[in-house]
């Protein structure tokens, strides 16, 4: 049976640390809401803005697939795997943290804030060797671009989970249909910019919608330059 869960932008958890302003779709750090723990394998969805020249000092992660999508500005990433990389809007970074990795993420600009989406997905394989990857997005409009899949051979980059992520920027009225890649998965839709009608539900900027039991989803952009992120994940985790 089809089921949906709507997360309006203003119902998200919020933390203002001065240097970091973060909205949490799901419970994270000091935001705890037992009704907002995860959407299947999607465990963390943070909408972060980091002040100029500031950032996250070196800290550890393990057994989580972590995807960062800069929306404006750039992040300077350093880790104990030897990576020192700048990721800017139009690129994404992925870490399979496995047995453990330490990293820092700083706003690469001393003048402008940087904003990015931080997404954590439970892995389907524990204790893997940690890895870092980065991909550049295409600049085209009016189609969904695959940025993550489970396969090393597929478009975009990959993670240890039967999950697919797509980004798309659309002109008003250019309708698109998304077909689930794997039966039984769920689809989480987040509007980055503008507004969309998703099947018969209208989403505004920064709203999220989880869909279960819908193999096909129709996205209708209601504004120009409307931007959306789709996250297909397994629903049954552990």
């Amino acid at each position, binding site marked *: 049976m089809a089921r949906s869960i709507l997360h309006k932008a203003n119902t998200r958890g919020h933390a203002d640390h001065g240097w970091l302003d973060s909205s949490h779709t799901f*419970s*994270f*750090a*000091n935001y*705890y809401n*037992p009704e907002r*723990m995860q959407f299947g394998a999607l*465990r*963390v969805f943070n909408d972060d803005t980091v002040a100029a020249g500031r950032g996250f000092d070196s*800290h*550890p*992660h*393990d*057994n*989580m697939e972590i995807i960062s999508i800069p929306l404006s500005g750039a992040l300077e990433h350093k880790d104990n795997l030897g990576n020192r990389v700048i990721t800017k809007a139009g690129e994404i970074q992925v870490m399979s*943290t*496995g*047995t*453990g990795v*330490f990293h820092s993420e700083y706003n690469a600009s001393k003048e402008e804030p940087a904003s990015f989406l931080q997404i*954590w997905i*439970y892995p389907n394989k*524990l*204790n893997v060797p940690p890895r870092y990857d980065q991909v550049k997005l295409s600049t085209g409009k009016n189609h969904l671009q695959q940025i993550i899949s489970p396969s090393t051979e597929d478009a975009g980059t990959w993670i240890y989970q039967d999950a697919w992520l797509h980004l798309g920027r659309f002109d008003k009225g250019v309708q698109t249909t998304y077909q689930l890649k794997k039966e039984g998965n769920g689809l989480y839709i987040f509007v980055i910019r503008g507004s969309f009608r998703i099947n018969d539900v209208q989403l505004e900027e920064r709203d999220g919608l989880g869909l279960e039991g819908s193999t096909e989803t129709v996205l209708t952009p209601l504004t120009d330059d409307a931007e959306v992120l789709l996250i297909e994940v397994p629903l049954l985790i*552990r």
Partner: protein
Amino acid sequence: METTQLHILAIGRNEEIMVVMNRLLNAPNNWTGVTVTTDDAAIAAFEKEHFDIVLLCAGITPEEEAALTARFRTGNPQLIIRRHYGGGSGLLKNEILYALDNRPNPSN
């Protein structure tokens, strides 16, 4: 729930991460934590002290998880045993609060 005193045992193979975990588990006023990197050290700690929660961190295989869970449950059937994901502070508090909220009622 936040005022409940909790004693937490965390087991993981990554020594550097367990140092961070030790700091995180001992930071809140109402938590105390012991962190170890071997199963033998975990069992020794379990036999010496009463724990409310055991967290299984990175590097613990499913087979080791099963063996540790069986050993710990024999000694304390009410013990909460959970996998800890993410390696740091992001999910730690949430995992513990959710586990406490959903712990089995012993009268059932």
